[in-house]
């Protein structure tokens, strides 16, 4: 039953994706900027024939509705066209960048959850203590800190001054493990290449912290307020009255119920992490989707912009679906 519901939801994503595709197609063409002209750069002489040849090659000489028709015809076949600047299928280019972005998003989410839940729970249990006040002030700072600035500070402190961590890219040169998923943490484990795994983890630390900081702050606050509410419930009092250890009461009885809002926020935020990391990917030279989006927008690489935005839309659809499915496990009262 559940799997049918999930399938239904996935099928419902198809019209959404096509709608997104048409909108992006129109928006990028309404935005000022001529891809062929930008490609020729501002240097030296360029012949008019050359510009025309490229326009023909990219179908830019055709009327808008013809271009849209060609685009949609290809999209339903799973072909997003070739990038103007890189002359490669958009799906290949995105396929290379996507694992990097996924790895970073999960690194950031992992970092955020790891610290946010203990901080949130502790602050709720010791409400109004100095620790509570401090951690809430800290989370306020986390929310308001610009990710760009925080990233540079991390680089200067841990990369330049202390020299502990690599500050750019995903892996150093010289490892040799087969690429299976494109996710280095998984590929290195599959190949049992532990030095490479360590190297990949080291590369992941700083960008994950920079990207996950805001999420950490948000999750800590959400967990705290939801814990506060749950701790006042009768069943928590009952559990205590039964003489259970306080730790068991908090973790087993209170936390599980308090986590629902946290998971909702996390689910939505994973979408944000996957789609909103242009700045972090730029600062840490992380070869992911965010940087691809930025580069493609500046060069008006229409097919690439379309592809990246469609992937973003798809990510949101999936992230929401996953959250809904997770609910049903945490709270059996909820159905899909």
């Amino acid at each position, binding site marked *: 039953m559940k799997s049918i519901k999930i399938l239904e939801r996935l099928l419902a994503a198809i019209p959404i994706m096509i709608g997104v595709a048409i909108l992006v197609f129109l928006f990028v063409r309404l935005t000022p900027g001529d891809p062929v002209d930008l490609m020729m750069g501002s240097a030296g002489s360029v012949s008019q024939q*050359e510009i025309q040849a490229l326009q023909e090659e990219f179908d830019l000489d055709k009327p808008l509705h013809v271009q849209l028709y060609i685009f949609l015809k290809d999209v339903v076949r799973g072909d997003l066209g070739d990038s103007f600047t890189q002359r490669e299928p958009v799906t290949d280019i995105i396929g290379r960048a996507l694992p990097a972005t996924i790895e970073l998003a999960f690194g950031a989410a992992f970092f955020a959850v790891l610290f946010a839940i203990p901080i949130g729970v502790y602050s709720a249990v010791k409400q109004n203590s100095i620790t509570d006040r401090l951690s809430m002030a800290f989370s306020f700072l986390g929310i308001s800190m610009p990710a760009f600035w925080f990233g540079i500070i991390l680089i200067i402190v841990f990369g330049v001054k202390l020299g502990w961590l690599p500050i*750019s890219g*995903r892996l150093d040169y010289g490892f040799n493990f087969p690429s299976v998923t494109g996710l280095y943490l998984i590929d290195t484990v599959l190949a049992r290449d532990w030095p490479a795994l360590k190297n990949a983890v080291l590369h992941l630390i700083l960008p994950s912290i920079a990207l996950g900081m805001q999420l950490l702050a948000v999750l800590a606050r959400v967990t705290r307020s939801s814990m506060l509410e749950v701790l006042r419930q009768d069943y928590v009092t009952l559990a205590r009255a039964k003489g259970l250890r306080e730790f068991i009461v908090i973790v087993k009885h209170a936390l599980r119920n308090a986590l629902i809002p946290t998971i909702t926020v996390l689910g939505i935020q994973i979408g944000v992490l996957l789609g909103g990391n242009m700045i972090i990917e730029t600062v840490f030279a992380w070869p992911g989707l965010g940087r691809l989006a930025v*580069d493609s927008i500046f060069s008006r690489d229409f097919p690439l912009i379309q592809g990246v935005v469609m992937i973003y839309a798809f990510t949101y659809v999936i992230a929401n679906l996953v959250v809904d499915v997770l609910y049903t496990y945490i709270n059996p009262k909820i159905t899909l």
Partner: protein
Amino acid sequence: MKNKILLSLVMLLTILFVFAGCSSGNNDQEGTNQTSQEQEEKEQAEKPVAKKEVLTVAIPTEVLTLDPAMHRDRVTETVIRNMFDGLVTRTTDMEIVPEIAESWEQTSPTEWVFKIRQGITFHNGEALTADDVAFTFNRLVTEGAVDGESSPRNGLLGPVEKVEATDEYTAKFTLTEPSPVFLAMLPFQEVVPKDYIEENGSEYFAKNPVGAGPFKFIKKDSKLNEQVIMERYENYWGGSPDISPVGNAQVDVVIFKIMPETASRIAALQAGQVQIVQEIPPDMIEQLEADSNIEVKGADSTRERFIELNVNKPPFDNVKVRQAMNYAVNYEEIVKYILNGNGEALKGPYMPKGFAYNDQIPGYDYNPEKAKELLTEAGYPDGFDVVIDAKADEKDVAEAVANQLRDVDVNASVRVWDYAVLKEKIAEGSRLMIAANWGNGSLDPTGILEPKFKSGGRGNFSFYGNARVDELIAKAMVETDSQKRADYWKEIQQIIYDEAPAVFGYITQELYAQRANVTNWEPSPDGRINLHDVGLE
């Protein structure tokens, strides 16, 4: 059941975290790109085999392709040029010297014959012959020659019509009309292997490039949006005899790493994680020079920067107003204070280093009184309001210009644009003052005065048009007598100078920084980073 899952998850997370924590503590045990000497010594003591020497260069934008025919991008060129050699190359003084071509001869105004050096091999072991040279250039100039697509580099070669191999080591170029800049454009065209491309197709070639340059491409771990890795080619023919040392490259491995953020590039250099960095902002020089591990180096850029004045619209339809702008702006001061001295103010529309520079042009010296006089004569005694349009990288200079213009009662402000949007507005003719720049790697007036000041030129943002200038440009572009050609270009410069369709600006020094242990590397005015001779101490 669910508890167990939760518990194991928590445990996994804990383990991972502890692991990560430990790793950061003993980073130097088996890491891979240590740079400090201590670590290297330790490494060498531990391992009998010498560690590979790796030189990492941080570049600001991604590499678009590895096929030399399919881009018009300087960063891509910089990377590719280390894997491929050209017929000719340039010294850091911009002198053209033989590379793959041993010698050449212009046999008629439209025919050039190149003698190809013997004994050069591509990275796949095949010998490089005149066939490869002919194939390379025909691939650039023939429509649809790259798997049905056309090369965007056709225009760079001007009137090249076809290239034939007349014997195994002789290639004959036929031009449709004389092209005085033909030779100057050749250093940027890399020779590719004919048989390899014909067998495998251009798409495969772009992913598995094979050249005849000092480094060969390593596919493993190379990703165009992340890094391009090359290893020394052991059977390299040695490189241009005019640029010493001749022989194999010095370092074992070269990595071009894409790092778009300036602050990150500089941090990586300071941390020793990269050895050469491009595009250093002038305000960072002081800080970097204070670090004894780092050296800052500059090379005169071939990119001119000026503010173009829309001659179709008031007030700039009046030549006096345009001249007044030139008198009112003090670029010497801007270069001195905003660029920290890393640049040179221009007197007219062309740079002094280029061919046929007119040194008789006196330049508009800074003279606000004269500017005010001219404005009054032109009917603007109280000045006017104007917006200077700029890209983000021109913002500081544009603001200084606006400030100076306010001294002559011209109420100027600056608006920063995304270039793609600005470019469309410029084409519509709706903008008045545009802080623009134009590159001219050929160091010949053709590369800048034609696109910028000919009627309808591709980069003519001022909409300037002068029948005499157009006529002279047309003549100069086919004249092969270099004295006559120089005279044409000099007259063109004089006319443009007098009519002042732009506030003639400046050229910058392009700034690079390197670790002190990098030896024998000099930046080049054309922006190339040639790593053939570079070593690591």
